[in-house]
């Protein structure tokens, strides 16, 4: 071992003579006076980073499945560490200093606080479901309303945690301000958004980003939110396409359904159907309307992605620290291509994967049948663990099921991180530069921040992301 090191040392000594030192900026560190600094994500080593990310996902995903998902905090930390590090501003990577235990503690604190709230909410929801709306999954609508006061709160806390656990060039980022106040802003703006039938969505987004950004810190310097001239007008113009598509298509669908009498006929049909089966026609109608509403939603989605790319660029371009200012120009492809890749990979792989996993599940099921000496006649499409007697057979069936769902979960994790997020992040970085970066040289370290609980609420409430 030592010998090998010595040999290599002497070799490298031949390459770098002892007096060869010149102030050296590597290939990845452009000269300071080019006017702007680049933000790059793993640009020259995409393959390497993809492999690293894939390793984390596969190992982390499997261990999470085996540890009742407790390992997810370790997986998320490893993922962030890699993503932060490989995102380089002016050649220097960001550093993620958060730890899995912080995430775990934050999440457990959130559970302690939320358990009572969720218990009451779920009982209420179940009552409404069983007593009034059996044909219609009310939780789709009601659950978001129940947790909505907490979502904005959690989003703010998650951002704050990530800021406080990020360093660049040895200087800590940070965030102050109150998550409760932010939730208040969010609540008021959501009412405005609903009253304007979604028209003021860009205004809401920018207003909330302003609150958030103005609380962000780099060292002792505060972020300023300064949208470029006419940014909101520009953003609203981009919002018109998805918004109008949604509104107009909804109008057309409603008009066609109404004028042709189609809707009346269909509703009448539901009424007779409900009469016959002694069920609730309102639920059938709501389900139908929800199905119809997918048409405008799907049609406007590509345009929404176009708007979203502009929104990300505008938010980034509005951020300034001292004189250092972001500038971002993002095209439709930035948001569209990652989604397209996601859908493409899903279509390509989901069938072979389901077959492979299905074979394994079938083998587990057959084993269970053998253990219990049953024949296939008890099998009717669904794998029912309760149809088996012995513990061994039940374990076999449950393992098969767990394997099947686990496989699908791993597949989704892989798609989300490797196919979607990696592309999106790469494209956003490519389209973004920082002007006057040298002004950050004046930034000084901030005094130690107080101990903080992590982003637990965001975890518990399923507000994921990286």
């Amino acid at each position, binding site marked *: 071992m030592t010998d090998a090191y010595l040999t290599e040392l002497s070799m490298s000594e031949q390459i770098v003579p002892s007096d060869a030192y010149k102030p050296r900026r590597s290939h990845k560190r452009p000269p300071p006076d080019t006017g702007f600094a680049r933000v790059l994500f793993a640009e020259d080593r995409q393959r390497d980073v993809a492999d690293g990310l894939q390793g984390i996902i596969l190992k982390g995903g499997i261990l999470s499945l085996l540890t009742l998902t407790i390992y997810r905090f370790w997986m998320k930390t490893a993922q962030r560490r890699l993503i932060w590090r490989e995102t380089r501003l002016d050649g220097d990577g960001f*550093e993620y200093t958060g730890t899995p235990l912080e995430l775990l503690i934050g999440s457990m604190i959130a559970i302690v606080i939320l358990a009572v709230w969720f218990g009451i909410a779920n009982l209420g929801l179940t009552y409404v479901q069983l007593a009034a709306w059996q044909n219609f999954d009310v939780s789709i609508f009601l659950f978001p309303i129940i947790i909505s006061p907490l979502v904005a709160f959690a989003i703010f806390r998650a951002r704050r945690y990530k800021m406080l656990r990020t360093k660049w060039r040895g200087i800590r980022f940070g965030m102050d301000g109150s998550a409760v106040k932010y939730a208040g802003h969010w609540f008021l703006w959501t009412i405005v958004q609903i009253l304007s039938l979604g028209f003021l969505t860009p205004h809401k987004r920018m207003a909330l980003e302003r609150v958030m950004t103005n609380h962000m810190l780099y060292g002792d310097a505060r972020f300023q939110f300064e949208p470029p001239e006419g940014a909101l007008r520009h953003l609203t113009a981009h919002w018109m396409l998805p918004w109008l598509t949604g509104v107009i298509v909804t109008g057309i669908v409603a008009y066609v359904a109404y004028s042709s009498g189609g809707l009346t006929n269909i509703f009448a049909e539901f009424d007779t159907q409900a009469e016959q089966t002694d069920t*609730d026609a309102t639920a059938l109608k709501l389900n139908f309307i929800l199905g119809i509403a997918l048409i405008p939603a799907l049609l406007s989605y590509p345009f929404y992605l176009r708007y979203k790319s502009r929104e990300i660029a505008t938010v980034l371009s509005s951020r300034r620290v001292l004189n250092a200012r972001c500038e971002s120009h993002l095209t439709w492809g930035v948001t569209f291509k990652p989604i397209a890749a996601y859908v493409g990979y899903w279509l390509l792989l989901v069938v072979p994967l389901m077959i492979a996993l299905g074979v394994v599940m079938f083998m587990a099921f057959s084993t269970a049948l053998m253990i219990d000496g049953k024949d296939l006649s008890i099998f009717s499409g669904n794998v029912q663990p309760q149809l088996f007697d*012995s513990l061994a057979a039940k374990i076999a069936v449950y393992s098969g099921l767990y394997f099947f769902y686990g496989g699908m979960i791993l597949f989704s994790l892989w798609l989300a991180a490797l196919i979607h997020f990696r592309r999106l992040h790469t494209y956003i970085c490519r389209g973004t530069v920082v002007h006057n970066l040298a002004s950050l040289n004046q930034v000084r370290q901030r005094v130690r921040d107080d101990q903080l609980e992590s982003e637990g609420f965001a975890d518990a409430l399923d507000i994921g992301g990286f």
Partner: protein
Amino acid sequence: MRWAGVYFDGETARPHNVEVEIGTGALGIFGRSGLIAHWGYDTLRRVPGTGREAGMIEVTPSFQSDERLQLEQSGAVKALRSAHPKVDKRPPANKSAIARALGWTGAAIGAMAFIVFVAIPALAPQIAAIIPQEREIELGEKVEELIARVGLISDVCTDAEGRAALDTMTAKLTDGLDLRIPIKVDVVKAPLINAIALPGGRVFIFAPLLKQADSADEVAGILGHEIGHVHISHPVAGMVRSSASAGVIGLFFGDFMGAGVMAGFAEQFMNASHTREAEREADAFAVERMAAANAATKGMADFFGRMREKHGEGGLFGGYMASHPSFSEREAMLIAASIGDEAEPILTDTEWKALRNICDSSESLKDGGETED
């Protein structure tokens, strides 16, 4: 020899181009004006997350420090690793964080256990009680459809004489009782020995159970048990409980993809333990109704005795043992409650034969399968 490096002092964001000397026990950092810093190897470590790229490393004098040094020549990286092999050691485990994590995890599990095992089971019957009857019946029909679709039950047996016998038995068991909800009992073809109660007063006796029973009293005991479930509204309370619990359990799995699936699995395992108490209540109800009908509970005790001999006490978890009191406990309870010699058989021999053959108007059923209830 000296290597090129970039040094961040942890006080400002300004990068410093420096020369680095890698010694045997420490590392020296030199700027234009001479030595800037001197880092001993005892605490000098690689910054976690860096060093993936060949020929690049970022180190810190200690994990508490904000100072950073980047070395970007592979020779320098090798020299450092050979002089200081422990440079790649990870931060030591933070004992107080581990203690805090364990404490909070315990608190979270405790809070959740209180909600799932105490609060929700206590409130579920209250919620079940205020669900309108017509909705409960509707719900029962949905469950019936579902279990028919997965093959747990198939055709309803319709032999007229058998039907009449079943009605007689139901009438005797419910005589003089102010039922919460009208009860509808059927014998169905099914692959298991079982009887189940659904929301909305629906009771199914699985045909193989009739073949396993030696007397009408045995079946009556089981039917009384199921009617007990219906009357105490166990099925709908159970649905409220499991549906509300799954939502709470989901919290634990957080934003991990597929948290819903995980919560579903967990709920299935936890569900069983809730039902034992309900089974005891239903047994007690059955005994009371059998007494009211002047019938012997001995038959039901015999049935459980035979089941115990044939199957043992049941599986370990997720099986019979977890969701029911043991066969011997139930047998003992029924023998103790036996009303003795003055009891009459609940059905005549002819009626019992008719009931037993209620499914025989079509093809015969095979025996065997799992025993529940």
